[in-house]
């Protein structure tokens, strides 16, 4: 075994069986291709890469071989999808290829089809939101609109928006009721909605160990669902409880699915990944309002471009007494509250 240990770094020390198993004895007798491959000098990274690659190749072949129809197209699509890059590293062409591959895969796996966009952030646009706590009546039409727009898991009842019922004169979330079902507005109470505030200085982004979440140039904090490893650090780092985790495979009935999707927005997620409000990125980047803003029957929700001095959101910031939650943390949310 001594001569083996003198080699600089082969694959075997990494695999951890460099010691007395005796399986390496026939090496160096005849240098076959197999031996040449396994005795290459490898760094840790490429070694792990080749192990993972080999495993996937094996599984892929097994899958293709066992499939009764020999569905090579689907296998190829899945293969390419598995080895795609982080969205931020993709060129425009790769983004196009990725979304069309996902569309094709959806068609193969389901009855209907979907339209997935990869629209980039636009120059001169920074999205901001204002919430009028005098106007909100707690009707919660926004929550319903959000769930159906963003294809949230119906089984666990996931919601991005939370409406808090607070007693008049006390803006304190500790005494807030968030589990109410009675006629609203209740006498002597007011309502405050929370969701992802798309912080300009987002702590959730800092803690992600795999760079699966980041802030786009237009200020929206997004998640690459295929890059997320589900460690939930971001969920813990968020001071506003804005992030949600898929504990089980999300269920959205085919007939309720919103087919107008964005890669960083409402495309179907999978088990074990984190998701959150994206100001309806699939809508806002097309000039539309987020679904909650459109659905609000009282006009309590205002959305717009913070960099346009003529926009209503700028008028609110300039003319109303606005505040943000936990401002002292320095997270700089782009979500302001105000009252009439």
């Amino acid at each position: 075994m001594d001569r083996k240990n003198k080699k600089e770094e082969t694959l075997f020390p990494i695999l951890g069986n460099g010691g007395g198993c005796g399986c390496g004895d026939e090496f160096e007798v005849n240098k076959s291709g197999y031996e040449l491959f396994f005795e290459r000098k490898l760094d840790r990274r490429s070694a792990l890469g080749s192990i993972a690659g080999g495993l996937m190749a094996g599984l892929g072949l097994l899958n293709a071989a066992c499939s009764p129809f020999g569905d090579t197209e689907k296998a190829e699509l899945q293969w390419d999808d598995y080895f795609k890059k982080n969205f931020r590293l993709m060129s425009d062409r790769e983004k196009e290829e990725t979304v069309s591959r996902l569309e094709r895969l959806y068609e193969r796996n389901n009855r209907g089809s979907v339209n997935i966009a990869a629209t980039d952030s636009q120059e001169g646009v920074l999205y901001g939101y204002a919430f009028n706590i005098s106007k909100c009546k707690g009707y919660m039409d926004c929550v319903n609109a959000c769930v159906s727009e963003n294809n949230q898991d119906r089984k666990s009842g996931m919601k991005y928006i939370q409406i808090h019922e607070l007693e008049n004169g006390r803006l304190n979330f500790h005494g807030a009721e968030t589990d109410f079902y009675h006629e609203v507005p209740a006498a002597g109470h007011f309502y405050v909605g929370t969701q992802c505030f798309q912080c300009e200085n987002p702590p959730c982004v800092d803690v992600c160990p795999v760079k699966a979440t980041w802030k786009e140039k237009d200020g929206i904090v997004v998640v690459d669902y295929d890059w997320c490893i589900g460690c939930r650090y971001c969920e813990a780092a968020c001071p506003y409880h804005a992030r949600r985790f898929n504990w089980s495979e999300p269920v959205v009935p085919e007939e309720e699915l919103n087919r107008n999707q964005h890669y960083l927005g409402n495309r179907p997620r999978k088990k074990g990944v984190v998701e959150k409000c994206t100001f309806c990125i699939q809508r806002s980047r097309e000039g539309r309002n987020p679904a909650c803003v459109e659905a609000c029957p009282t006009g309590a929700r205002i959305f717009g471009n913070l960099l346009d001095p003529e926009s209503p959101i700028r008028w609110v910031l300039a003319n109303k007494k606005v505040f943000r939650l936990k401002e002292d943390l320095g997270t700089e949310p782009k979500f302001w509250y105000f009252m009439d």
Partner: protein
Amino acid sequence: MTSQTFGQTFQIGRSLLLFALAIFSTIFAIGCGGGEHRGPGDQHSVMDQIAVESKPNNNAGLSSERWLEGVVYERVEGMNLDNLDTFFVEHRTEKIERFNCSECHSEPLSAMKSPDTGKVRAHWEVELHHASADVMNCQTCHSADAMDSVQLIGGHRLSLNQSYRLCAQCHSTQAADWVGGAHGKRRGGWAPPRVVANCASCHNPHDPGFPTRFPAQVSRVD
């Protein structure tokens, strides 16, 4: 201490100093470089950033026109404010079920109400829950001899599409918020043109308060 050992000590001291400087500058560079999401030239607060980066009428060429299909709107008039060139309001007349009113109100109200015709009261669903009877009655807004329009307190007649001017007579705070953007509902999307709902699109003018009702969902988030 010999001069040789002093020289060695000096050299060691100098290299230690350089080493410390290198560590300090690395820490400084990392500390001031900030997180990756903070690009160069970014300001400390988002309000400062907005102040620096704002540009008038720059919305990346995005437009709400596409989302305004089927919405009939016109320019806001008579509000004595400066952003009216780019401010539009949704029509009401296309949405009122029994418009034009003159289709029934072909003769003066007094004639239609006379006991000879047997018709004493129509519009049973309309009950006025708006201010007190001392302040308002039907004639505050409706004129008996021009049923297709509403009238201001001074007698000036308006199309129902301009009823926001009627409401603004008393509700000046709400009107200012509406023109600014803090009150009301936007139609289409956030991008220009700015088209908003009329007052009566959301508020029943005869009973303008919002009713209590059961919420559409239970708010619980786990």
